[in-house]
């Protein structure tokens, strides 16, 4: 049986792992390669690296980091942040990443998704969507959550998949950093709308949040950062718990 995936996310700034709270306040959380190795050893199913300042700062350090990670770890990993062109993708994939994620750049120029999928395959293209509930609708935000767009999350997910995205990484900005649980409603709305894997992100604070995600939505993966970085919930403990809840886990 296909297993639900537990994915630690490493936000990268200047080659270090950092974690923001509600996309704003930033704390240092360690060396990415060391953390990646630790997570892989502990049973993480995949890793995601998001270069949160890549749109502003130089990117060569990211390529070097990807090479170091690829040499050291033996599970799949995705790299995102500031990927604006097929050329950017080529460098990241050549450095050893399995998938890339696009966010703001795909909103700005949706054809980018198709261009990447045509050259590297849909399985390589993760569409990252940052979304916030404005009281009526789940709208799409870009530039690290700083800018609202005219897009609705479900519509954008459907469009992204039709353009060639092979996976959706959905982050609820309302939930991110709150540790109050995943945004189950919008996650399931996206799952209902597309037939590709959906990774839910934002809000994981306790073991039960992952149980609720996997029992009430069709998300195939749950992503979190701070609870793993600060060892609040060690991955082996989380996986053991989910197994006792009869969730299909590696």
């Amino acid at each position, binding site marked *: 049986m296909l*297993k639900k995936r537990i994915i630690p996310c490493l936000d990268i700034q200047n080659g270090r792992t950092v974690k923001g709270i509600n996309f704003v306040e930033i704390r240092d959380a360690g060396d990415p390669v060391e953390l990646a190795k630790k997570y892989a050893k502990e049973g993480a199913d995949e890793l995601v690296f998001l270069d949160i300042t890549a749109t502003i700062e130089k990117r060569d350090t990211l390529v070097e980091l990807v090479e170091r990670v690829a040499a050291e770890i*033996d599970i*799949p990993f995705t790299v995102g942040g500031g990927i604006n062109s097929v050329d950017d993708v080529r460098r990241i994939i050549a450095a050893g990443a399995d998938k890339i994620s696009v966010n703001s750049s795909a909103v700005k120029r949706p054809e980018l998704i198709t261009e990447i999928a045509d050259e590297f395959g849909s399985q390589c293209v993760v569409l990252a969507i940052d979304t916030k509930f404005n009281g009526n609708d789940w709208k799409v935000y870009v530039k690290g959550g700083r800018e609202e767009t005219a897009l609705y999350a479900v519509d954008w997910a459907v469009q992204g998949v039709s353009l060639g995205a092979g996976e959706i990484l959905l982050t609820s900005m309302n939930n991110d950093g709150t540790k109050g649980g995943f945004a189950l409603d919008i996650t399931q709305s996206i799952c209902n709308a597309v037939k*590709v894997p959906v990774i839910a992100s934002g809000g994981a604070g306790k073991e039960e949040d992952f149980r609720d995600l996997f029992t009430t939505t069709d998300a195939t993966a749950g992503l979190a950062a701070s609870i793993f970085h600060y060892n609040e919930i060690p991955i082996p403990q989380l996986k053991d718990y989910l197994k006792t809840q009869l969730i299909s886990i590696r």
Partner: protein
Amino acid sequence: MIAIVKYNAGNIRSVQNALNRLGYESIITDDPSLLRSADKVIFPGVGEANSAMRYLRANGLDEVIRSLKQPVLGICLGLQLMCESSEEGNTTCLGIFPNKVKRFQGDAIIPHMGWNNFEEAGGSLFKNIAPSENVYFVHSFYAETGQYTTAVCNYIQPFSAALEKDNFYAAQFHPEKSADIGTLILKNFLEL
């Protein structure tokens, strides 16, 4: 020396990284003489079957791969290209295994992406490995099961997770991305 077949498919670097971690020297090449003289050959790949086969034929690599005598391991697209045909781009493949490659049908999520266990696993690649172990898959097409199937996985329906015939071995999953179990499977191949 281990030779990794160089062609127009991605994700070859991660195979070389895995070999490095195991302490094996490897070379990524499309040179027929280097491929023929290597101790073992790995034929990896993530990509599209039709364009991959066209590239292999244009460069004479189809004949080279078919005629190799040392142990050869196809991975992911490599496995599919070693089969008889693929529905992806309606492609005639290398025909090393008689299996047909088809697209997953139905309402389920496609691709089959993530960790899955085997229904059964035997043959040389799975020495000291229990069928309940999980490995990492990413694919939208699958090889039907048949007489050369050594491992079966179930997603939507049972399919060939691994094949073995004479000196040819193939894995639909990615041993190079399957943590300790994948490393053990690669090691089993390298120690044949």
